[in-house]
């Protein structure tokens, strides 16, 4: 297993390198720069600014400098917030997004798994139909429709929550519910499918024949195998929660890293764009690796290869 993880991490290095290099040169070849804003600045000031940030040096030098500083763990100064570094901005905004993502993931698994198991156990009864319809609704009503609708009803109409902001614990409820429900729907669907397949297998019949109670059969014997499709979905799901948070952070005006990323691209804040892309890419690749390890742990018949 250590070999497997080491090998995969080794493969990650060229991928990350391609991502950084691609993004670096893509940004440089698009029109506009960090200092071409609506505020007119004199050519001398612009030159000074560019000299200060090293933008007047040849492109390959800038690229090498940037690569070297990334290797030392320094993502450089932000162009749009002159007093702050990219590391500081990320350290400031990331915890908010991570909290939102973790609660949403908990919502997705906490609602999705029980519903999926229930639907599979009560197959083709009204329980199953209710659970499955819920799952389909979660998939077909996108976050940017459900979010505003929930705000309209629960925050504005009933006044139970604040319509936006991220200050008190209660402000976490609506955003993470909206972001989590979509993935709860997928998780429920996949759990149902996985459980149905496992429940029809011989070892389940053996367990029942040995007199194991139904709860024990489901939780102890079936769930482990039934979870496989859910675990392989976790990689894409986490990627989706990350990008989904762009929309959620906009709807609920949450000061997270997602809004910062979209704004930095508009502002041509070169270093901040690169820093966030690097962060997202590294994070997603790690999550996919963890999901692969979990898959083997659930099903020892698969081998690390």
């Amino acid at each position, binding site marked *: 297993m250590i070999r497997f993880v080491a090998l995969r991490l080794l*493969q990650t290095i060229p*991928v990350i390198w391609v*991502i950084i290099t691609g*993004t670096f040169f*893509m*940004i440089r070849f*698009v029109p506009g720069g960090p200092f071409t804003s609506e505020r007119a600045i004199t050519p001398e000031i612009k030159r000074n600014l560019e000299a200060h940030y090293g933008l007047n040096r040849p492109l390959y030098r800038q690229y090498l400098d940037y690569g070297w500083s990334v290797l030392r763990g320094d993502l450089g100064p932000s162009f749009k917030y002159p007093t702050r570094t990219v590391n500081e901005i990320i350290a400031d905004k990331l915890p908010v997004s991570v909290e939102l993502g973790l609660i949403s993931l908990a919502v997705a698994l906490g609602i999705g798994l029980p519903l999926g198991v229930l639907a599979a156990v009560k197959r083709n009864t009204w329980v199953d139909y209710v659970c499955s319809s819920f799952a*389909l609704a979660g*998939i*077909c*009503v*996108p976050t*940017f*429709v459900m*979010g*505003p*609708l929930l*705000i*309209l009803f629960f925050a*504005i109409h009933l006044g139970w929550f604040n319509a936006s902001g991220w200050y008190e614990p209660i402000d976490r409820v609506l955003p993470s519910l909206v972001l989590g429900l979509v993935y709860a729907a997928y998780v429920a669907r996949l759990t149902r499918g996985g459980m149905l397949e496992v429940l029809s297998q011989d070892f389940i019949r053996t367990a029942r024949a040995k007199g194991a109670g139904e709860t024990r059969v489901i939780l102890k014997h079936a769930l482990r195998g039934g979870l496989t499709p859910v675990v*392989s*979905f976790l*990689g*894409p799901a986490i*990627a989706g929660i*990350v*990008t989904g948070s*762009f*929309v959620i952070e*906009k*709807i609920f005006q949450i000061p997270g890293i997602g809004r910062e*990323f*979209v704004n930095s*691209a*508009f502002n041509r804040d070169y270093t901040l*764009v690169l820093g966030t*892309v690097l962060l*997202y*890419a590294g994070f*997603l*690749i790690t999550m*996919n690796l963890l999901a692969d390890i979990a898959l083997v742990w659930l099903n020892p018949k698969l081998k690390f290869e």
Partner: protein
Amino acid sequence: MTPIDEDRGHSLWSDAWHRLKRNRLALASGVFLAILALLCAAGPIFSQAYQDQNLELGATPPSPQHWLGTDTLGRDLFARTLYGGRISLTVGLVATFVALTIGVTYGAISGFAGGKVDAAMMRIVDILYALPFAIFVILLMVFFGRNIFLLFFAIGAVEWLTMARIVRGQVLSIKRMEYIEAARALGLSRRRIIFRHVVPNVLGPVIVYTTLTIPAVMLLEAFLSFLGLGVQAPMSSWGVLIEDGAEKMEEFWWLLVFPGALFSLTLFSLNFLGDGLRDALDVRASKD
């Protein structure tokens, strides 16, 4: 089955059509989508022009003159929703077509080539799967402007991966079938084997997955539009309308509710139709 039926024989397609006809939900979805597509295509002709402003009227709730009400500039929401649907459906179809072309070509080459080429090509797909593609699409749209052709291409370039995997798997398994060997033994040309024996057998999964890709593509387009990165004014899509409605929902709920409902209903129908086709064509490809 009566002997007469057996005599006439059943093609895969007539069987599938019979099964699909019995699935009322899928059929109703298909009819709904057809009507919607017609309305969106023809709507702006018989409805009030979608950009007719009437500033004195302003935003009004649904009424006999304006079935879905008007927006803050006094524009008829029904006409605007149909017009937005035109763009959303067009993006859905064209970007899916781009994804289909890339995915089928890539998957077919990989499957036919086999061996080391196949392994390398699929490894690339695996790596691409793990990348944050939505992030690159956002960067592309910000940097190169909100161009609708770029939108087609960017979305298509994201959604082809699963299609490539499905096609490659199909081609690999069909290649080893005995009837292919028989056809080769009979001296059929390579071209004829591909078009007569391989393509029809790959078609089922491709059709099913295409139907399921369209809603995913439309979601991505609406997601970008909602972030302000989709099509540009004066064009509008459902994502643009929903974003506009979400901003003004406190006073004018109908601006959010009607475009949102129609968008969700369309996604529902496409999913029902896709699932129906999957059952009808008996495709057991796993959905990721």
